[in-house]
């Protein structure tokens, strides 16, 4: 299996190459999950806000 371990060693640069790829994979997985979660959370909250149609934003009425 010399050739496979040679491949992963990357001519002595293996730790740099694989750590760069590993970190990238982890960060992208997390941020993909967070992006989907952002949408799902908004849907949940909108459902809770629920109710029949109201104007998008009602003007604030300040009490006199």
């Amino acid at each position: 299996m010399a050739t496979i371990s040679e491949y992963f060693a990357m001519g002595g640069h293996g730790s740099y190459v694989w750590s760069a790829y590993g970190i990238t994979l982890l960060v992208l997985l997390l941020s993909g999950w967070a992006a989907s979660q952002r949408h799902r959370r908004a849907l949940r909250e909108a459902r809770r806000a629920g109710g029949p149609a109201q104007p998008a934003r009602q003007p604030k009425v300040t009490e006199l």
Partner: protein
Amino acid sequence: MSLKSWFHRFGSAPFVYRLCAALSPWFAGLAGILIVIGLVGGLGLAPEDYLQGDSFRIMYIHFPAAAIGMGGYVAMAFAAAVGFIWHLKIGHAAAAAIAPLGAVFMTLALITGAIWGRPTWGTYWEWGDARLMSSLLLVFLYLGYMALRAAYEERDKGDRVAAILAVVGVVNVPIIHYSVNWWNTLHQGSTVTRMDPTITGDMLWPLLFTLFGLGLLFAWMLMNRLRGEIVERERHTRWLQEYLTGLPQ
């Protein structure tokens, strides 16, 4: 289609929401395919660099991350400007959706660049290096945009103030690009983004795959975030409530 009706359609939240819904699975699938091909090419088939050995393979994520981080900033500033000038809420929503993703990609560029720098330059990081500093500034511009938006209770106000920062910050993007020509930096000069690329074809094609693959992945995440922004802003509108009742619980 006239410019006005085009504007009207893409300014319409329900239209953009449904467009993202329809496109996003295609983007995700194509992104996966392109990235896998690019990685097989970049980590396997491409020959090692005559000078840097195998460490150059970090380029296949470093370059796309930086290019997308910079391109994302221009897109964010453009969207924020459209929102500011024409009072188009969807522009601000798009800019808000881009900011965290751009910050993530640019941070990845910095991290992978530091890891690549260690065997190549003998150091992870060099304070004062023009390429490194201008890239770090871009991350702070993204974070500043997010922080400024969040600082206002009224969403419209935050959108407009942060849009000004986004647009002003755009000058940093060409500075990053030309920093390797204008100053002495550790960073190598351009080999891809120039009129006469000096990178060999064996090394270049996998880079194009990871570039477009990661670009589509960015777009996929962006569409999810934009849908979240739209839902949040439109939660009391009739179209959204009707859409919600049609969804399985």
